[in-house]
């Protein structure tokens, strides 16, 4: 059967009862934000992927496309976010084809929350869904258990408190597109600096009414790796050639035609004897 497999559940319980250590839950680190402005909506995310306390990917992509005008930022289990959004992308496309209308963000939201509620949080996808549809710009957030939120500005993930602090301070009604973009970038940067699970760069996606959505990959790169102070590359010929032997690859060549050349260059390097 596809999907969840419970074959080993009883075995794992038995092993846990015998004292074998069971894997602990790991917290997932991410900062994602979304913000509405006049005539559109913008979402942004950091680009650090963690496995426990290890940085698994320094420049991963947390913004997923659901439809050309609906995008989604994901926190939580990366694979769950990726595949749940791909599933919704397919469903929404089918839905759009069968109804002959443009997909709406609320449709996507309802499909997602119903799907996630069915799995009781075992599909660990925490999403900010944003997009423009015939009803205008829309911004929602969904938690893994299926609860949803509506707002003018939202943040999710372990860096959500840092990001929300910035959003609460600097957000105002009727932002322009540029203001919203810089606000979201600032909120993500707050997450990057103040949350250990978030880091690297800022990705951003801007969805405007009557315009195609624009993805700004690495919109801000505050953590660029500086160049090394010294170069450790050695020029060709730094190491002296002590011996050079040329052997033809072909097998059937008579033994006596092997060439053996020995270059002796005494003034270049001493040889250990």
């Amino acid at each position, binding site marked *: 059967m596809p999907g969840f497999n419970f074959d080993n559940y009883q075995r794992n319980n038995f092993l846990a009862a015998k004292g074998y250590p069971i894997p602990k839950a790991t917290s997932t680190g991410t900062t994602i934000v979304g913000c509405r402005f006049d005539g559109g909506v913008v979402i942004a995310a950091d680009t650090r992927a963690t496995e426990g306390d290890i940085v698994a990917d320094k420049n991963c992509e947390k913004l997923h496309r659901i439809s050309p005008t609906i995008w989604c930022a994901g926190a939580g289990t990366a694979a769950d976010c990726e595949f749940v959004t791909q599933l919704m992308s*397919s*469903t929404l496309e*089918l839905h759009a084809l069968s109804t002959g209308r443009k997909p709406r963000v609320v449709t996507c939201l309802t499909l997602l929350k119903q799907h996630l509620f069915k799995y*009781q949080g075992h599909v660990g996808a925490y999403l900010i869904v944003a997009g423009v549809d015939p009803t205008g710009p829309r911004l929602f957030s969904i938690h893994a258990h299926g609860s949803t939120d509506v707002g003018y500005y939202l943040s999710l993930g372990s860096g959500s408190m840092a990001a929300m602090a910035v959003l609460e301070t600097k957000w105002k009604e009727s932002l322009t597109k540029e203001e919203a973009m810089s606000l979201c970038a600032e909120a993500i940067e707050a997450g990057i600096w103040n949350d250990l699970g978030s880091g690297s760069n800022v990705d951003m996606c801007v969805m405007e009414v009557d315009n195609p959505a624009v993805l700004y990959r690495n919109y801000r790169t505050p953590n660029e790796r500086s160049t090394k102070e010294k170069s450790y590359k050695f020029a060709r010929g730094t190491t002296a050639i002590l011996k050079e032997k040329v052997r033809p690859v072909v097998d059937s060549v008579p033994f006596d035609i092997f060439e053996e050349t020995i270059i002796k260059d005494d003034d270049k390097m001493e040889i250990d004897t």
Partner: protein
Amino acid sequence: MSLRVFPQVPYASSVPKPAISSTQVPELANHIVVSKPPAPMADALNMPSEPSSHPLESRLKNWEQTQFDLKMENLRRLFGTHEPVKRVMELEAVNASLPLYPDVLRRAEVVTGNGAPGSRTDPAREILLGRDGIVDWEDIYGGMEECPLDFHTDLERRIKI
């Protein structure tokens, strides 16, 4: 009849022990003749008909049935008994035609006979259940055990050549 939205959670406090004695070895299926891989041992041990000790398992297993029952109950309250009866009869008709389908068209067997969702690949059923526009994990990740036989082997087996 109830208006239950999600399946009841059977929190089992104990796990039934499979009754296999050491002298009694269950017969193994000849999977060369059947031309299907052997069923995993865990299926037999976990007893799929029994509620598992993991709450999510029974929830997922009974999810579609519960949703279907809820829909039928709502229709009954709105329009009267004839409406669910008609729908279940339509599903029964489709189910009755299922054994005539080659395996390549019906990947999963219909589990329950009362018109409950079972097969996900039969388009007629999907339309009747209102699932023709929905993509789920089962539609994308078909397990290896559901890998269909080729048409000729299927037909040979069916008419017993």
